[in-house]
């Protein structure tokens, strides 16, 4: 192996300029591969993070995925039972015995949970009416599962605990009604219950619809308003690792019986779009390396042609076809390894540069940074792809070199 390596190195160092050009191709290919893919993966992660942050990882609803199994079906499982015209029992809507379910979910490791009672209400202020979603929350628990507290621009969620008649609204609604902190609005529930409430907080998420329609109050207040004492209709769950949401949701659903939807299930369509986007991105950045591998092919083919006499000599000495192939494959590997090392350094530099860029898209008030993902995976993929394309590029010239017949060359030279 060492003698083959020495011959390979000699070939490469003997043709500095061509080697340099091939190497540059690989370096640029790896660097762009790395920079572009880490930017794309970064934006994907950023997107998913927004998706995850702005919605619960898991929501347990007060619904069932399938109609409930009737007692007769349980008693005679597999029997020929037909039950028709089943009418669900009239009961107070909501998650039954939510405290036990809450306790069970809280006992699971790596997650936080908050009970919520969501209902429709109409906000009445200065003769105007606006229908909104009113969520009754427990401020201490809500803060652990939602980013709402970070989005507050005035007041806080905690103020709800201090003021049982408090309400938190979004900026959209506040602007529409010209509301400010401390102003009173009338809130009318669907059953006609009406109560004046004081604005104790204003939030801004950046999502116009959310900011116009979502309002929050204390859970107890909402239970009274909606006349559903001791009931909630949502459990909102936040996981330490959002990617475990699917499994956790299944476990919770199995025990609680209620429909538990993970963010992954809720955004399947968007996630599949991201996968397609990744495939497109990887094929485009791979093209750079494929072009670079043509450079390597070209260089090695030239070396094989120029060195046929040397190859014939090596073979006459007793080198195997395998040795000769190895020499040229090694040349490809050397270019690949050296190119990858420099390419990764250059790519990391590009990533660093990109991550410092700040810009303000038109119509957006906040500055946006390029979302670069520094995952080691990207470095590994770029290196692996560069090495594979270098070896493939070296394979054809290497095979040709291995097939050189010494007698034909010696006869031609003599």
């Amino acid at each position, binding site marked *: 192996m*060492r*003698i083959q390596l*020495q*011959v390979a190195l*000699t*070939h490469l*160092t*003997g043709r500095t300029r061509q080697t340099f050009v091939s190497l540059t191709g690989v370096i640029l290919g790896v660097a762009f591969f790395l920079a572009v893919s880490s930017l794309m993966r970064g934006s994907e992660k950023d997107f998913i993070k927004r998706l995850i942050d702005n919605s619960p990882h898991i929501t347990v609803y007060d619904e069932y995925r399938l109609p409930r199994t009737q007692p007769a079906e349980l008693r005679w499982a597999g029997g020929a039972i037909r039950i028709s015209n089943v009418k669900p029992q009239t009961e107070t809507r909501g998650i039954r015995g939510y405290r036990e379910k809450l306790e069970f979910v809280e006992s699971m490791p790596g997650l936080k949970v908050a009970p919520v009672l969501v209902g429709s209400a109409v906000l009445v202020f200065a003769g105007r009416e606006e229908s909104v979603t009113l969520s009754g929350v427990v401020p201490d628990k809500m803060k652990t599962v939602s980013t709402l507290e970070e989005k507050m621009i005035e007041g806080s969620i905690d103020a709800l605990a201090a003021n049982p008649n408090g309400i938190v609204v979004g900026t959209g609604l506040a602007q529409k009604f010209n509301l400010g902190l401390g102003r009173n609005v009338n809130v009318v529930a669907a059953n006609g219950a009406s109560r004046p409430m004081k604005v104790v907080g204003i939030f801004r998420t950046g999502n116009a619809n959310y900011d116009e329609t979502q309002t929050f109050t204390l859970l107890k207040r909402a239970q009274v308003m909606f006349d559903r004492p001791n009931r909630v209709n949502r459990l909102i769950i936040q996981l330490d690792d959002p990617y475990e949401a699917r499994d956790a949701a299944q476990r919770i659903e199995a025990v609680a019986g209620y429909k538990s939807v993970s963010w992954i299930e809720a955004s399947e369509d968007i996630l599949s779009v991201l996968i397609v986007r990744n495939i497109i991105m990887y094929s485009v950045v791979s093209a750079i390396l494929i072009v670079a591998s043509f450079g390597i092919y070209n260089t090695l083919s030239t070396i094989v042609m120029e060195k046929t*006499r*040397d190859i014939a*000599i*090596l*073979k*006459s*000495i*007793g*080198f*195997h*076809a*395998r*040795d000769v192939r190895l020499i040229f494959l090694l040349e490809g590997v050397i270019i690949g390894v050296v190119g990858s090392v420099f390419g990764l350094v250059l790519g990391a530099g590009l990533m660093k540069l990109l991550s410092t860029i700040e810009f303000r898209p038109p119509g957006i008030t906040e500055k946006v940074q390029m979302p670069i993902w520094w995952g080691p995976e990207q470095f590994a993929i770029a290196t692996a792809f560069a090495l594979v394309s270098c070896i493939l590029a070296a394979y054809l010239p290497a095979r040709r070199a291995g097939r050189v017949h*010494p*007698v034909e060359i*010696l*006869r031609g*030279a*003599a």
Partner: protein
Amino acid sequence: MTAVLRAEHLGRTLAGEVPVTLVEDINLDIERGEFVCIMGPSGSGKSSLLYLLGLLDVPTSGRVWLDGEDTSAYGETELANRRLEKLGFVFQFHFLLAEFSVLDNVALPMRRLGKHGDAAIRSRGMELLARLGVAEQSAKHPHQLSGGQRQRVAIARALANDPLVVLADEPTGNLDSVSSATVRQILHDLAHQMGKTVVAVTHDAAFASAADRRIGLVDGKINADWRPA
């Protein structure tokens, strides 16, 4: 069987629209320590015969025995191993690797064989170069050497793995008379002092005169009556 190299009805035909016969029905026994010259006019098949004897080419008929082994059943890899271990080649053009130093060129077959460590390879390489009188050139590259010196380095390389047989294809064809005489003497000594078998193709009558035996080759067949013009 005492012959170190033996040809049995050896023939080589190039396939094609018009098949070309290079050599035909060659029968030959070469003893250990013998210095044999193959002579003949241009195109008589001398080099082709040498390539067949040196296991570089594969005969289309007949067989070559090397050191008591029938080589006709061997594949490319086994033939390459025999070349590495038992044969050494010297060509008309020195055929040294231009990018390698003189010592590295001589070390090449030993490093491929991998029987010795680096230090042993270096010392044996220097010893061979010294025996051939080119030790002081060891660090130079082939293009810095004269034709005679290069050919001596090529002989040193052929001897690197202590072969049984040294095959030389017009070893003096490209040299002046003084260098030719030196190379001739070296090959002669190889056979008579070191016990190597030397088979050389030449059309240099002076060179052939140093050989123990001269084999005439005309139109690919051995012709005992052939004498150099």
